[in-house]
């Protein structure tokens, strides 16, 4: 083994190697033998024909001089060519850079194309929000769920489109809500008189999660319309600019102001109610099935490690829920959406 590794390193060892080192020595001895004969002959001739030698020396010097000129010329040419090579190398580097840039552009273009295709495929247009409203919503989405080192955020998840679609359908129309009057706010200290009956205790203070929290004479689309307009007005008065033009820190602060009911005018709704609704809808857009327009590519589910409709074998993992549910260590599973599940079931 050690011999072989020496050979691999280019260090000749053993019989063959020794012969190889001798070969040049033999050739050199033969060469010296013939060369010695030639020199001896010239020495004999020089003693007889000296004047002719001077002429020859001069001619030789001239020839040397000419050759030196040629060498200088060639040296100059080499130098010139080196310059050209340098120039060309520079050009090559520059072109490589351009190629990289173009590749980058190509990738970006391809991404934009697939993004647009996705928007077309997934219907990522606005159905009820105006462009202006959508800018505010998108800015809130990015402030609440930023795209960061922890992964894609609400924008990548298409939360805007989730909210927009919900506002167009049952949610926005309050189709599943009890909408008859009278509308009496929660959290009223008494007495309060309604329909001729006086209630000394007023109304209960209801937290967001309570089903009686929202007591507004408007559907949820109108609630958002007033909320977005009021946020924009507040942003301009308190932060000197439209919400979407503020820094992220300012946006978060402005939303925190809503939570704390800081704005003194906010349309017909309580700022905190709008804040709560925004937080609820933005996170829902990140975490509900992609079927509803958000959670694109299941980025939200990947973030929280939710498997959706993958019970353990959707992609042929060979796992079964009954094993996973009694396991004492977690197993990461790629999520599957309801649409994938339905196509797989078909």
């Amino acid at each position, binding site marked *: 083994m050690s011999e072989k590794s020496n050979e691999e390193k280019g260090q000749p060892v053993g019989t063959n190697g020794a012969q190889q080192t001798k070969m040049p020595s033999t050739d050199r001895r033969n060469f010296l033998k013939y060369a010695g004969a030639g020199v001896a002959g010239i020495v004999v001739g020089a003693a007889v024909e000296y004047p002719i030698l001077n002429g020859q020396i001069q001619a030789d010097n001239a020839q040397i001089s000419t050759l030196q000129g040629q060498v200088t010329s060639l040296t100059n040419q080499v130098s010139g060519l080196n310059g050209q090579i340098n120039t060309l190398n520079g050009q090559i580097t520059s072109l490589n850079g351009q190629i990289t840039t173009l590749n980058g552009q190509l990738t970006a273009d391809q991404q934009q194309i697939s993004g647009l295709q996705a928007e077309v495929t997934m219907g990522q247009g606005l159905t009820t929000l105006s462009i202006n409203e959508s800018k505010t919503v998108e800015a809130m989405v990015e402030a*609440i769920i*930023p795209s*960061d080192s*922890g992964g894609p*955020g609400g924008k990548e998840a298409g939360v805007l489109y989730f909210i927009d679609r919900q506002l167009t359908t*049952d*949610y926005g129309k*309050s*189709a*599943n*809500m*009890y*909408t008859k009057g009278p509308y*009496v706010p*929660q959290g*009223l200290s*008494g007495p309060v008189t*309604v329909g001729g*009956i006086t*209630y000394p*205790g*007023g109304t*209960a203070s*209801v*937290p967001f*999660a*309570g*089903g*009686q*929290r*929202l*007591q507004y004479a408007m559907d949820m689309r109108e609630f958002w319309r007033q909320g977005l307009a009021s946020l924009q007005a507040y942003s301009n008065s308190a932060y000197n600019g439209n919400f979407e033009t503020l820094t992220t820190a300012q946006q*978060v602060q402005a*939303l925190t102001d809503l939570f704390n009911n800081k704005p003194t005018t906010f349309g017909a709704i309580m700022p905190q109610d709008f*804040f709560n609704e925004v*937080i*609820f809808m933005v996170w*829902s857009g990140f*975490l*509900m*099935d992609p079927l*509803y327009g958000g959670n694109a590519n299941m980025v939200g589910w990947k973030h*929280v*490690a*939710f*498997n*959706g409709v993958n*019970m353990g074998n959707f992609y042929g993992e060979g796992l079964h*829920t*009954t094993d*996973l*549910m*009694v*396991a*004492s*260590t*977690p*197993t990461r599973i790629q999520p599957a959406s*309801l649409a994938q599940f*339905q196509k797989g079931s078909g």
Partner: protein
Amino acid sequence: MSQTIEHPAVDVVVLGLGAMGGLIAVETAKAGYKTVGLERGPYWNFTSDFTETKYDEWGIGFMRKFDHNLAISTVTLRNDRTQFALPIRRNTAGNAGQYTSEGFGVGGMTQHYGGLMGRFPPWVYQMYSETVNKYGLDFLNAAVPHQDVTDWPMTYDDYVPYYNRWEKMWGVTGTTEGPLVPNANFPLPPAPPTPIGTMFRDASEALGYHPYETPTSLATQGFTNEYGVQVAPCVYDGWCGAACNYVCETGAKANTANRTIPAALQTGNLDMRTGTWIYRLDTDSTGKATAVRYLDIEGNVHVQPAKVFFNGLWGFNLVRMMLLSGIGKPYDPVTITGSLGRGAANGVPAANVRSVSGTVNIGGNSYCAGNALAGGFAFMEFADDFVDHTGLDFIGGAYPFGIGSYLGGGPQNFDIFANGPDQTMMGSSFKASIKDTFLPQKLTVGIAPYGPWPPTTDWFIDVDPHYTDAYGDPLPRLTMDYGSNTFKVANYFAPKYADVLTRMGATNVQVTGPIDGSDQHMYTWPAHIRGGARLGTDPNVSVFNKYHQCWTCENLFAAGEVTDPTGDNTTVGGTHPAGAASYVAAEGIIKYLKSPGMLA
């Protein structure tokens, strides 16, 4: 053009085909009585209607696509009589505030319930007399201010045969239910236990308790019930009981549509009419009910006479139907007289009680959460009156059910709203905090013990003077809040749970401080209302006798949690005891059909 359609009289009309109505329908139909079943929702074909579309947290959990639409009707709620009651305007999402929607369709609320089963122990049936005999009336009055506790009309022993029958029919899983509650040998084996569940079991045993696996109504095996209905076993897809949200596509999670109604239809004696809106019971001069009035989808008025009516509507709707029809004596909270609407108590824990938590060295896939509340354990020693209350200031105990049951019971992304939206839920740090939330490396076991909420004279159900449903009838109104008894129970038992957690090897075991609960109020309707139309032996405080026959309307019967005389007692979910009791109602109805008159 709406018409009035008079139907020929039948033997029995069942109002609402939920868990109770389904049982009455199959019992009367099998006994040969012509039965009409009225249901506002559809007769879901659970296999074809749910298999492809149930895996939808948004549609099911928030938009309640398979449930009752609040735009049609809802309930108003206030915490005391001085307040104006606000209507529940929408379903809320998030674990803290989420409530189960009213049922819609054959199966009712059991369509989407958590499937928690278990018998009421003997004490519950004699809560009043046991407490007064043992500790005195002063003790009860002090423990539960304004208490309005009554006994059930029958004892636990009386109910045992009905329990046995109902458990076999419904398909209840579990082992022999501990030595403290005899005679319970459930027909189906329990679901596979979880590692935390077995830790809890072993620790409880080591401390001298008698743990058993939490009973559920999820068929762990296929079986055929007494009506010949074939039940398919659970497939453990995990989308099951989370927050009592999900419907079952195999029929393993017991409800009317997969246990009783198919057999009732097969007799040819059940005329099932779905898509109907029941709004009134007509009565004659003697007080007997003569017909039920309902609307069909076109707005036609239907009048359906019958010999017997069974009110199987849910909770406050059951009470409202009687109030709107002028049946029964409405409760007056000022004079504390009358019985209809009286004795209603919440059956859902407060948002915040003294609690205990600890971390165990076990991780898991919390989304592959198995089903409902299966896989965990319980023991009775902390429940009811198994602890001697001498020298204590509360009644009842804190029953630990489903400890270690499958993590969360299924998909609940809404859990991130467990504490409601707030200003911390923005930006990268919050986002990072929920990274891999469904793949915990270590799990926290949290136990929030809560005690019974016996009925009081302060809490009741009536009709709202301001709000009406889509058809112009007054909405039901709840006057209800958290009772102090539940908080005192939690204060007493939380440290005892800490001992169990410590014994389990949990680290960082923490017990929150004692709490009096005075700052906590009910802010959404409870998915379990116990009482409001109580069974009893005294017509002054109860609405129905032991056969579930109305004291003032002899051909009207009812069953369900709302007929429970003792309020919430924390021991188990309500369907199991109510289901067992509904067999008594079925017996009473058939007795009445054979020989009309007040049953004794």
